[in-house]
């Protein structure tokens, strides 16, 4: 059984900005525009073909003005890093409804150089009154808050969690575009020896901070048949929203938004976790994929730690991680937010890597015999979530 919208739309264009990293020569809007241009070129379409605009670091009207178009469908859902995964879901629905034919989903963020970026929240907002006065200082101080409760409940350890950045770095070493491509191997012990940021997070538990962008072009499955690139089918999607401030998270050991989102995506796709060949689980921090592996059903509740730490030694002495190259469950194969790139709202990069893998364009990091990929991300500290299950078949 699949949902009514399963396989009704496909990704036909996908690209990043020419460069990612530190880009002091590009504004927030310039990053959006370059990503959009590159994705349309990849699709073999013109900006005049676009009639749906999905964007949140730039509002959809702001971006439409910048690109000189008048779309007939817009979406500015901005709930953090997963917004782009949610946009893909909304684009599928809008295309099925006939509200647009060619959806352009665009991310751009001057996360490092901070050129034309807005300051977060006001002192009168709920978070401004009940979080900021107590010295929260960016995502590292709020994403970290659930971790010790989770450790306490399930007996998981920091050493187990340290396997996430180590495993993800192995993929970055295979990806020439990864910011940490030349960063060398890191062990779980190296993660713990890196400077402390906000206990229980050390520097290597935290994502990179970079400038960059990316974009997707989505159209109906019917129209996708005749396009330049082999279509990547959208089998199922989900979304959810649970809270805004981390203290309001109902249970610090599980993401309600992830559960709602994941269930919808699997149900629509008619698949279960054992059908998924490749995973992109948004790693803003080392801890986030642990919760997602469990809440999406890839491992039983409380068992992400032992699963991630079940390594073996390769002939050259390096560790083979279960989620790394050669592992049983390839995850975050671009190098992730931890070692590839993280602009602030990373979800677009997770989608783009799934597309690259499903197209067979992933070079040295290509996962063999790949048919399905699942992309999942949070919005802020487990506040919202989006899921997409994609296939090249």
């Amino acid at each position: 059984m699949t949902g009514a919208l399963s396989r009704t739309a496909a990704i036909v264009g996908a690209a990043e900005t020419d460069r990612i990293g530190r880009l002091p020569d590009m504004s927030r809007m310039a990053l959006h525009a370059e990503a959009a241009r590159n994705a349309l070129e990849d699709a073999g379409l013109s900006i005049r073909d676009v009639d749906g605009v999905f964007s949140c670091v730039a509002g959809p009207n702001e971006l439409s003005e910048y690109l000189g178009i008048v779309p007939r469908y817009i979406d500015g859902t901005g709930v953090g890093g997963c917004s782009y995964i949610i946009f893909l879901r909304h684009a599928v629905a809008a295309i099925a409804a006939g509200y647009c034919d060619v959806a352009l989903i665009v991310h751009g963020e001057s996360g490092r150089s901070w050129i034309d970026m807005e300051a977060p929240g006001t002192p009168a907002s709920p978070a401004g009154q009940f979080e900021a006065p107590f010295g929260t200082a960016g995502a590292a101080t709020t994403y970290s808050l659930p971790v010790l409760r989770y450790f306490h409940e399930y007996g998981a350890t920091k050493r187990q969690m340290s396997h996430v950045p180590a495993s993800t770095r192995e993929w970055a070493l295979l990806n020439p575009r990864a910011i940490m491509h030349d960063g060398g191997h890191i062990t779980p012990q190296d993660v713990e020896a890196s400077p402390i940021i906000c206990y229980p997070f050390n520097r290597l538990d935290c994502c990179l901070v970079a400038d960059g962008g990316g974009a997707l072009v989505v159209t109906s499955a019917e129209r996708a048949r005749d396009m330049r690139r082999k279509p990547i089918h959208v089998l199922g999607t989900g979304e959810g929203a649970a809270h805004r401030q981390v203290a309001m998270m109902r249970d610090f050991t599980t993401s309600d938004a992830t559960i709602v989102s994941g269930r919808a995506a699997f149900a629509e796709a008619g698949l279960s976790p054992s059908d998924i060949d490749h995973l992109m689980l948004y790693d803003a921090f080392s801890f986030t994929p642990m919760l997602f592996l469990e809440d999406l059903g890839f491992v039983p509740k409380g068992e992400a730690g032992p699963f991630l730490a079940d390594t073996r030694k390769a002939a050259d002495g390096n560790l083979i991680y279960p989620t790394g190259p050669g592992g049983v469950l390839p995850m975050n194969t671009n190098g992730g937010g931890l070692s590839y790139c993280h602009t602030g709202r990373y979800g677009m990069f997770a989608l783009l890597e799934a597309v690259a893998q499903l197209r067979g364009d992933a070079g040295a990091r290509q996962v063999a015999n790949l048919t399905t990929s699942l992309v999942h991300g949070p919005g802020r500290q487990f506040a919202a979530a989006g899921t997409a299950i994609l296939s090249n078949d």
Partner: protein
Amino acid sequence: MSMESAKPAYRGALPKPTPETQPFWDAAKAHTLVLPWCRDCGRPHFYPRSLCPHCLSRSLEWRQASGKGTLYSYVINHKPAKGFDTVPYAIGVVALAEGPRMLSNIVTAGEPTPDNLRIDMNLDVFFDDVTDTISLPKFRPVAS
């Protein structure tokens, strides 16, 4: 000439009360922790809203809370927010005895460490008069 030494201006983030939160901050100024309670479903909530998040009733009343809670989870931050001069400092989520959770600072006798901060430990509220108009409710471990 006044003998009082001028207190250096507080540089940390300050809350800007809104109509639904003003009574909470007024009470904090008087060193009292209050919570909004629903007269219809009988449950308290936090942070203060204009209606009850459990049943959407607008019939709310402020009641004094015990000021007691337990440590649901915490972090020890080494990269301070603006105005936080003593590093590291602990940010915790407190499970109040009345039920709701509140993010705050956990202030220990010495530097906060995983040894003196224990999940589920008992905490008591106190008030930090950071400016003439704002007092922040913070928590310290109950002396054992």
